[in-house]
């Protein structure tokens, strides 16, 4: 492996990891209240909200990417506001990629959390309230620790799914080294230029990563028997 390919593997990998990490953190913050609401509500809007959250699972990434490109672009609703605020465009930037990834990976964070919250007995929360815990206190002191598996599942899936994203990145982020050239784009690049060796290295790395992470998650899920 010469130094040049070494760098060209390393930079996209690091960028992918950064993107996945930031996206996971944002999604846990945003996804937790959404999942909590979905798990407790009896509102008639629940089905609508669930459908919206789940859409990225079935839509082609290019469709999501296309609409995000319009929305985040300098003339789009969010993009123009961002330009006013920061002076830079959201499209073809790392920040834009984070927003796009959050939309794209939202269901993968919300669904494990929602099912964890749904299996949480209302009775246990009622006990916490009658024991002097406010709703917020009871959420952090009882609901969160009792839903550890949900949080692990949500983190792993959101992280791994963001790492594997391609179509949305291509539409919204393009292929800017160090800014938006994540590992999946880099692999595509190498294949386009018939550089199969480098493509192999990166693909194998992702393959192993995916296996280790998913395997680890299933092992943890089996061992972690918090009822």
């Amino acid at each position, binding site marked *: 492996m010469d130094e040049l390919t070494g760098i060209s593997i390393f930079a996209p990998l690091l960028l992918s990891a950064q993107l996945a990490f930031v996206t996971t953190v944002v999604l846990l913050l945003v996804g937790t209240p959404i999942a909590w609401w979905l798990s407790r509500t009896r509102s008639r809007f629940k089905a609508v909200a669930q459908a919206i959250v789940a859409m990225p699972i079935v839509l082609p990434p290019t469709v999501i990417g296309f609409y995000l490109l319009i929305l985040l672009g300098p003339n789009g609703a969010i993009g123009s506001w961002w330009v006013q605020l920061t002076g830079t465009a959201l499209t073809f930037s790392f920040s834009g990629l984070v927003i796009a990834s959050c939309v794209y990976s939202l269901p993968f964070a919300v669904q494990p959390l929602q099912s964890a919250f749904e299996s949480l007995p209302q009775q246990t929360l009622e006990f916490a309230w009658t*024991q*002097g815990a406010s709703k917020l206190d009871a959420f952090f002191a009882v609901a969160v620790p009792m839903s550890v598996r949900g949080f692990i599942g949500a983190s792993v899936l959101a992280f791994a799914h963001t790492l594997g994203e391609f179509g949305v990145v291509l539409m919204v982020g393009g292929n800017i080294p160090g800014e938006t050239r994540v590992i999946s784009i880099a692999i595509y690049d190498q294949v386009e230029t018939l550089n199969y060796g480098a493509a192999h290295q990166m693909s194998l790395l992702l393959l192993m990563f995916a296996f280790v992470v998913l395997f680890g998650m299933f092992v943890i899920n089996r061992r972690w028997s918090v009822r």
Partner: protein
Amino acid sequence: MTRIVGTDSEATVTLKHALRRGDFQLDVDVQIPTTGITGLFGESGSGKTTLLRCIAGLETDLSHDSRPVHERGVGYVFQEPRLFPHLDVRRNIEFGLRRSSGAKIDQPQVVEMLGLAELLDRKPDGLSGGEAQRVAIAAVLLRSPQLVLMDEPLASLDQRRKDELLPYLDRLHDELSVPMIYVSHSIDEVSRLCDHLLLIDNGKIVAGGELHEMLARLDLPMLSGTNAGSVIEARPWRYNRNYDLTQFNFSGGELSVPGLYDTNLRSVRLRIAAHDVSICLSRPDDTTILNVLSAEIDDVQASGPSSALVRLLVGTDYLLALVTRRSVARLDLKKGDQVFAQVKSVTVRR
């Protein structure tokens, strides 16, 4: 809206709650004393649990009490213990303690009283139903609530576990001064543990008062038939080793009960079910029944098509006898008659 007024012996807790759900309507406006345990007795579906949930703030009722659950100072022991599975027993009982401002109850005392010392490091899923319920009770008490609600805490346990937990509840009654509402559909539990009694039927309180007086009333359908019975305070006096019998003294004489009871106790509560009491006009000498008391008939009321309840004055205590109306007619039983009561079985609160 539940209000606790005053702190002296005259103080009362006012329960005023109303709620409508489908065909069911809860409408309660009653005062209970702040001392001792108040039994809330009624059949399933009569609204007992709904009333407790309104008091705790877990149901939104029409009283528009906007205080959130955690600010009401009401402790709730649920039918099924609802401990926090991720915390050990110690952290479970400290959960409420840490969140209460005016903790007055001594933690080691509660741990000792409920026999939890050996359980402190265990997780809830390693506890039996009775142990878990004791932990839940300790957790609720340590929060030093102004009012404790107990919703059939024995109902989810089998008879052995019930017998195991009951002595702990007796100790709560004797050693704590927190006002408590104890819900049950078992008249045995209520008459064993409570000092006051509220009868609830179809969402309404039909009668309420001091336990002995309530049990002696013959006009309450809920306390007739198999539920009828009386409670007397008696003092264990001596133990007959030969026959394994303990003799108790009370205002109306002596009662012998199988088994050994601590004769150092000043007073214990004996429950005598009305169907275990029969009446003779002359003193029966040739009976296998051990306990025969001389009594005066205080009142006779028909309690069903074939049955009647007879209230007997024995010393200063009341006994109830469930007999047939035919016997009442045949023996011409009426108020003021001097008779003999045969007591077949006595339940002792240890």
